């Protein structure tokens, strides 16, 4: 460990800007959100009334809110399962020391750099019930032309597919890195012992991937819950009839379209509890296997 510089006071100056930004734009608004949950705002923000835990009571008895929670978990769960399964297969395919494999890696990973809004726009185009490619294929093959926009479960499928596609790259990156860390000797020893591919996968590779799988479960969940707003905004606006009204979308709608500040803040607080839970789980599990990158 490097010997330290003696000018201790300087450390505080170096940290000051970061601490300031954290206090002002991170801690303060989060704290204020908590206090806002205790008020109802009337007359378009001109009057605040203390209502104790009424906002929460209203939330927990609201069919719309409970639907939005359910939708969020279904959307997240399905997207994650699909995306991680496909990504693992892709990572295995990409884990070959072949020349030019890099091109395939780039081609498969890069959709992750797209925003949810861009992905949403592209897939809105493909899923368009009247002239989209997907319905053309479905009609040619199965003679069906589903209405992806006006039927609840179909809209949900639409956003699940979009999210799965978009997140493949992210999962592939981590799976590929993990696969490449598996010591060759382990796999070769298994071969010597007569293991076939499937056995190698289940008994050696998969167990060694468990930390990565766990990590990705948490990170994907956070992405689905907290960063997918743009997709919903462009593709479905929460509809039809709340079928894709994920928690984040409803929260923003209640807070900024309906001016129900306290109500929206209560939703924020619940989301906060969720992200804390995800993060703590992640730290607990990761803490046991901290490795600083490298070989």
């Amino acid at each position, binding site marked *: *460990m*490097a010997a*330290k*510089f003696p*000018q201790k006071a*300087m*450390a505080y100056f*170096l*940290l000051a800007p*970061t601490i300031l*930004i*954290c206090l002002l*734009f*991170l*801690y*303060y*608004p*989060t704290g*204020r*959100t908590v206090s*806002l949950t205790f008020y109802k705002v009337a007359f378009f923000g001109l009057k605040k009334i203390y209502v104790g835990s009424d906002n929460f009571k209203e939330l927990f008895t609201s069919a719309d809110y409970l639907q939005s929670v359910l939708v969020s978990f279904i959307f997240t769960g399905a997207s994650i399962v699909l995306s991680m399964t496909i990504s693992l297969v*892709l990572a295995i*395919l990409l884990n070959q020391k072949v020349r030019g494999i890099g091109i*395939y890696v*780039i*081609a*498969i990973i*890069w*959709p992750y*750099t*797209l*925003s949810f*809004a*861009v992905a949403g*726009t*592209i897939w809105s185009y*493909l899923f*368009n019930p009247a*002239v*989209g490619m997907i319905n*053309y294929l479905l009609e040619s093959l199965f003679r069906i032309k589903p209405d992806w926009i006006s039927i609840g479960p179909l809209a949900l499928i639409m956003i699940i597919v979009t999210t799965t596609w978009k997140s493949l790259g992210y999962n592939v*990156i981590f799976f590929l*890195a993990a696969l490449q860390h598996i010591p060759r000797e382990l796999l070769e020893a298994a071969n010597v012992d007569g293991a076939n591919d499937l056995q190698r996968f289940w008994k050696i590779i998969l167990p060694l991937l468990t930390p990565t799988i766990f*990590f990705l479960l948490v990170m994907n969940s956070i992405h689905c819950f*907290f960063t997918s*707003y*743009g997709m919903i905004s*462009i593709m479905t606006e929460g509809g039809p009839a709340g079928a894709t009204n994920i928690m984040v979308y409803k*929260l*923003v709608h209640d807070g*900024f379209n309906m001016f129900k500040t306290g109500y*929206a*803040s209560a939703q*924020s607080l619940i*989301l*906060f509890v969720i992200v804390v839970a995800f993060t703590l789980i992640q730290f607990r599990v*990761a803490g046991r296997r*901290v490795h*600083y*990158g490298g070989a």
Partner: protein
Amino acid sequence: MALIISALLIMTPVILALIGSTHTTFEANLYPPKITPGSAGITNYIRAWDFGLGRMMLNTIFVAAVVSVGKIVLSLLAALAFVYFDFRFKSLIFVFILITMMFPTPVRIVALYDLVESLKMGDSYLALTAPYLASATGIFLFRQHFRSIPSSLADAARVDGAGPLRFLAYILIPMSMSAIGALAMIQFIYMWNQYLWPLIIISSEEKQLIQLGLRMLMQDLAGEQEWGLAMAGVVISLLPPLFIFILLQGQFRKGYALAEEK
């Protein structure tokens, strides 16, 4: 083989979008869908650009650059403090910064909007950049990187009488270029993709960011089915991050894996 098919399948949506961007309104609404390039050429791109996307693209480049640079600077300074200084409350402050990773935008957005408006920062580039300048991820990345640098260097610097800032500027930074590159790339793409905060805080069109341009196009489309225009918007929106990604994708994989795995 399987790999080629997979890669093609994954690229198909984007390829279709690219082809679709050259369709006229008529061609875009043909059924069966037209999968050959259309006759609108780059007309849709020009329309999208004039519609506002051009301006938004410039705004976003500006904002993304400012945040990337700002975040890197602040993270470097903070990492310098954590690795090369001992001071009271060091662990506390570290945890303090660490915890901010649990405050994603939706959790504070109502209060944040309130705060920014009451500071009279609403609808400004300042509001679009300032909240993003602190980064636990960046600090982690640099801290980890600095710790891998031989301590003999810091000792030598002090023997030479160099202060911490000169040490940072002349030794640490040159040795951290790949980490800086990786972070710059992640941050640029992250800012490029921002949707929710610009949506809430920006009300004037000429300051708006690129992702919101897509929303504008799609909303205008509601009755018109101008898919060619929408796809042109999509291509415009995805080119800069793609360009940066391809340029630095080696860095990306190293740096991102390091940063996210904490």
